[in-house]
Each structure stands twice: as C-alpha cells, then as structure tokens.
C-alpha cells in the first residue's frame, strides 16, 4: 500500500520550519501524533485527526511559559542590571522540536473491495498494509449457505417441472368429451407425404388415428369400395380411389408412403374408399402415423365433432382456452360456406313464412265466403235461440276442420312430391357406389308436424275473423 500525505490539518502551533520527521523526539506526551493507518473493509487508508482537547492544553502551557520567561526577564532587567554585554557567536546547531499535525492519507487509486455473497471468512491471505496486485486473492469465504440455496432451488426446479408436466399434458379426450355440444373427440396425427408404387410419387395427406375413433369424425367404412378400415394393422393403409387410380393399385397391394421423416414406409392397402368428389386422405393407425411423422407418441391434431354445427365456434373458443392450442372451427375455416348456408336457411324460412301467410289469407277468404253463404242458416239458428258463442264455435270448428284436413292433405301431397323428386337418380359419383338421388330425401317428422301445427294455428286464426262477424249478425239481416 502506498501511503502518502495528501492533506495536512494544522493544529496547535504552525509549522515554523521544515522538520526531519525521522529525528523527531517525543519530549511532551501531549504532542504525540495519534492514530495511524487503518485498513478498513473498504480498503481506504487515512490518518486520524489529532484530538482538539490536548491542543488546547498545549496552548495554555505555551502562554504560561512565555509569560514566565517575560516576567523573569523583566525582573532581572529591573532589579539587577549588569552592564555586561554578551557576545554571541552564531553557531550551527540542531534544534529538536516536535510539530503537532494531523492528516488524511489516501491512495492514488482507490478501489472498492467486497464480496457478492455472504459467508464466513475461511482464509485471509493478505494482512493489513500488504501490497497486493490486481487479481490477487484477498479473502476466501465459506460458501456453504449459497450451496444450500442451490440445492433448494434445484429441488424447486424438479417440483416445478413435475407440475409443468402435469399441466402441459393436455386434457384427455374424455375431459373434452364433456364440453357441451361435443359429439366426438379423436386425437390424431396429420401430415403430408408422398405415396409411391415404383417410380412416380403422388402427394397425399396422411391421417393417423385409431380407426374406431376416426369413424366418429369422418366415416370411412361407409364409403369403402373394397377392403376394410376397421381393425387396421400397423403396416396397413386405407387410401382413396383417386390415389389408387393414380398409383394403379388395388386392395392388398403394397405401396410406400414417405413423409417428412424421409423414410419410405412400406404399407399394405387394406381398403380403398371413395368420397364422391375430390381427393381424400390416406388413413393409417395412430402409432404408424406418429412414427412416420416422427413425433414420438404425441399427436398434432385433435379432431372434435360437434352436435350443432352452428355451435362450433363456441366449442373452438372453449377448446383454445382449455388446450392453449389453436382451435379452428369449420365456420372460421370456410366463412363463405357459412354465409351461403345462412342465406339459404334464411330464404327457406322466408319462403315458409310467406307460404303460411298466403295460405292463411286463402283460408280466411274461403271462410268469409262460407259465412256469407251460410248467412241464412246463421239467421235461422239465431232465430231459434242460438247464442253468438255457439255460432262462433261452429265456425271455429269449421275452420279447424278445414285446417286439419288441409294440413294432412298438404303434408301427404308434400311428402309425395318430395319422394317423387328424390326418385330421379344422377349418375353414380363414386366408384362402386349407388347412384345418388337428384334431391336428397330429407323428411323430418318433427318438421312436418311443426308445419302442420303452424298451418292449423294460422287457419284457425284466419277463421276467427269471419266467425266473429257471423256471431254478431242480426238474425233478420242474416236471413234477408
């Protein structure tokens, strides 16, 4: 450590002349320079300031000394005055004098020394006042506390990882199943690949799923032309007719499907199906799909089938929250299809509504004519004591009769027409399939009953007006 006086604090007598510090004597204990360099943890070094109390005592002593000398001199001068002249020759002599002073000793370069963690000092290789080089070890601390903390933190990591695993495992299919409006849940893997038989590879989208579960989402067995899908083996695949045609293969043949893993997977064709239009996917088992797409035992897609297709958006929203995954509903994937469906159903409702209104008017006019034609009978009935309510009931029942008869006849006629429309067949769209009807026959008994009910209600309401006017008729006016 290089110590150097960088400041001097004057105290007591001012320094009268330069002194040789090394030759300093200490005749007066009051004039001791106190303090010394102290090594602090911060590494600073300075001299402590002298105490002010001792400097005051020294002042008093000096004053008293001067006064005593002066008084002695004066007494000598006045009382005994020799006329003696002393000749003093200048002599070179050394004067021993102590100068009291205090100062602060600082370093040229100061640096803060500390430790970034707490711990008991194990070893201290340097001593106070040692010169040290940059990078030298000043002290070695015992770091067992920190080590304990590390151990604790490591335990916490293990726990957190276990929790993470638990929470990121994803809900089971059975847990998703209980979401309202969910019909079926099928975990699957989906990816792209190339199918080849010999030279030419053909692009194919690959779906790996448990056949029984996949059937719940997209029926395959129903559309099979040949072979089977149920009980698909690990080395088997079900492909669509278009692909089979391109590869010129049939059930039982072997093809290779190469997916992103790059390894061609030899697969036996277990079945061929036809969607009717467009290309379909190639179906393998979940395990085969996982190994082909190289995703271990994870799945990359969960198919969810809903009961009410218009509630798909709500289900997708719930799933995306629950799974923290992207959940796409059919309506968000095909928005234009949704719009056209909505427009179609809206126009269907409009047509139904206007048909109902038009037929109500027709029925009302029929009943009005009927009331007019029966005016004489109404008059007769009233003249022999029929009450207004009785007349009203008669005409309401007549309206009801017309309504029931009309709606039953109408329903039968409607069903017949729909059935006849469903008879003309269009040429079979899928190979090996049955030709489909031009208009699919869709007879919902509930819908028919609802339409009949609506027609009956509308008719009775339409009958009410003429029935009321009949009931109010004045007998003579009616009979005239």
């Amino acid at each position: 450590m290089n110590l150097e006086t960088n400041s001097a604090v004057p105290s007591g007598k001012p320094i009268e002349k330069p002194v040789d510090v090394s030759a300093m004597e200490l005749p007066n204990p009051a004039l001791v320079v106190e303090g010394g360099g102290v090594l602090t943890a911060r590494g600073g070094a300075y001299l402590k300031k002298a105490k002010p109390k001792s400097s005051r005592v020294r002042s008093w002593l000096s004053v008293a000394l001067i006064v005593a000398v002066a008084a002695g001199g004066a007494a000598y001068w006045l009382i005994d005055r020799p006329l003696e002249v002393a000749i003093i020759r200048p002599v070179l002599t050394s004067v021993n004098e102590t100068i009291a002073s205090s100062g602060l000793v600082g370093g040229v370069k100061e640096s803060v020394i500390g430790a970034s963690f707490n711990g008991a000092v194990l070893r201290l290789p340097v001593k106070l006042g040692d010169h040290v080089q940059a990078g030298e070890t000043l002290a070695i601390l015992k770091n067992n506390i920190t080590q304990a903390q590390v151990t604790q933190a490591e335990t916490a990591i293990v726990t957190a990882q276990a929790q993470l695993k638990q929470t990121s495992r994803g809900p089971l299919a059975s847990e998703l199943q209980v979401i309202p409006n969910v019909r079926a849940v099928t975990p699957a893997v989906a990816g792209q690949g190339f199918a080849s038989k010999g030279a030419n590879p053909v692009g194919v989208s690959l779906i790996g799923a448990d056949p029984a579960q996949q059937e719940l989402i997209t029926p395959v067995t129903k559309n099979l032309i040949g072979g089977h899908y149920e009980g698909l083996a690990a080395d088997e695949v079900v492909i669509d007719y278009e692909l089979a045609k391109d590869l010129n293969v049939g059930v039982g043949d072997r093809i290779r499907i190469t997916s992103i893993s790059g390894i061609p997977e030899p697969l036996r064709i277990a079945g061929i199906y036809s969607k009717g239009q467009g290309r379909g996917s190639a179906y393998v088992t979940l395990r085969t799909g996982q190994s082909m797409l190289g995703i271990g035992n994870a799945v990359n897609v969960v198919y969810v089938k809903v009961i009410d297709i218009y509630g798909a958006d709500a289900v997708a929203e719930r799933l995306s929250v629950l799974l923290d995954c992207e959940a796409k509903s059919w309506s968000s994937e095909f928005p234009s299809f949704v719009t056209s469906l909505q427009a179609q159903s809206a126009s269907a409702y409009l047509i139904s509504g206007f048909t109902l209104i038009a037929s109500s008017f027709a029925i009302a006019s029929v009943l009005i004519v009927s009331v007019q034609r029966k005016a004489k009978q109404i008059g007769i009935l009233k003249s022999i004591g029929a009450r207004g309510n009785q007349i009203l009931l008669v005409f309401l029942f007549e309206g009801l009769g017309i309504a029931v008869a009309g709606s039953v006849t109408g329903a039968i006629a409607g069903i017949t027409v729909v059935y006849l429309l469903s008879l003309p067949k269009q040429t079979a769209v899928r190979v090996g399939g049955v030709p489909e009807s031009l208009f699919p026959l869709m007879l919902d008994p509930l819908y028919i009953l609802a339409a009949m009910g609506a027609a009956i209600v509308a008719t009775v309401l339409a009958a009410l007006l003429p029935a009321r006017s009949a009931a109010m008729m004045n007998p003579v006016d009616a009979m005239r």
Partner: protein
Amino acid sequence: MIGVPARLVIETISLKKTYPGKVPTPVLFGIDLRVAAGEFVSIIGQSGSGKSTLLNILGALDVPTEGLVKIDGVDISTLTEDGLAVLRSQVVGFVFQAHFLLEELTCLENAVLPITIRKGSATPEETEWITSLLVRVGLGGQLHKYPDTMSGGENQRCAIVRALANRPRIVLADEPTGNLDSHSGEEVFRLMRQMSSEIGIAFVMVTHDERLARAADRVLSIEDGLMRSLSKEEHEVMA
C-alpha cells in the same frame, strides 16, 4: 177473453221503427199492442205496411228505433245478446213465410233443433213429444225425410212444430200459409189454433187471408204505420 184479466205476454208502447239508410224509411209510427197469454191474434195490412217489421221486433230478431217492447213482462232493450238468445229460445217461437228448415237435417232433427241448441241434446222424452207432435200434424211418415224431399205444406207444418219445441209462451207466425194452397193453408191454421188452445200458447199471425184472419180471437190491422183494432163487424163490412 174479454173481461178476463189475463197476463200480458206482449206489450208495446209507442213502438217506432225507421229503417236507416241514405233515405231513411219510416215504417212504424207508434204501435201500442197488447197480447194476453194464450190469445190468438191475427194481423192484417197491405203489403209493405210493416207487418213483418213488427213481428221481427216482437220476436227480438230486430230492434225498434223507439218505444217500449215488453215480451213476457221483460223490457227487451235491457237484455244482452245472450239474454235475447234465451228469449228467442224459450219465450218466443217463430214461423216464417218460407219454412227456413235446415237442408242438412231431417224433419225430426229440424223440429228438435231448438232443444239441441238450448241444452246440447234432447232427452228421449222430449224427442218422443216432438215426434208425437209431428205425427199429429201428419208428418209421421216424413220424420226422417229432408226438407227438399218434402212438400211446402209438410215443411211448413214441420216449421210450426219446431216453433213449439221449447214450449214457448208466444209463437209469431209471419204468413205461415202464404206459400201454401188454400187447403194446406187451412190445415196449418187449424193446427196452430189447436196448439194454441191445447198448450196455452199465444199466437200472433200475420196473414193476407181474410178468412183465416177472421178465425182468430182478435184481428188487428196496420195502416199508415199505426195499429188499428178491427171489430168482427168491421171485418164483415170489409169483406
């Protein structure tokens, strides 16, 4: 009947009727009419004098423009629509010039209809009684025939039985014999008189037939919208 204080089944005081329209048609100018229980009254008058108008008002089929009408002691202006229906059903029976039977029903069904309307269905006794009346008027063989398969006289006799079905206090007959030949007309008239005296029902009959009119207890005439009582002598003079 004179001198016997009988209960009035019909009483009108200053009954006026004006048919409303672009040109209002005043028909009755103040009719004062009293008919006692069981009395047989005939009303004569020129065509268009207002006989049918009066009868319709008495039968509560039409409303007067002014004046009081009491049927069986009840001011009909105080009755509700349903009250009027009860009056038409149980107090008054109506026979029109045309029989006005319902074509869809048989003779017997037509005759029982007022009972059916009044209380839903007729008891076997009531049906029995109606049948006996029909037999009395010579329709024993026509019970299950429809009006369009019967003669005018047969239909009119059926209509009279229908008017009696609920045992009313008054029967109002508006030219019941008008569509019939004199023989059938006389038969129908005789029947009405019999019923009147047997069951004690007051009859008010409008007719153009002088002879039949004269056979009533009392003959009234409507002239210029006013009622005039004709004595037997006057009748004979007129005849």
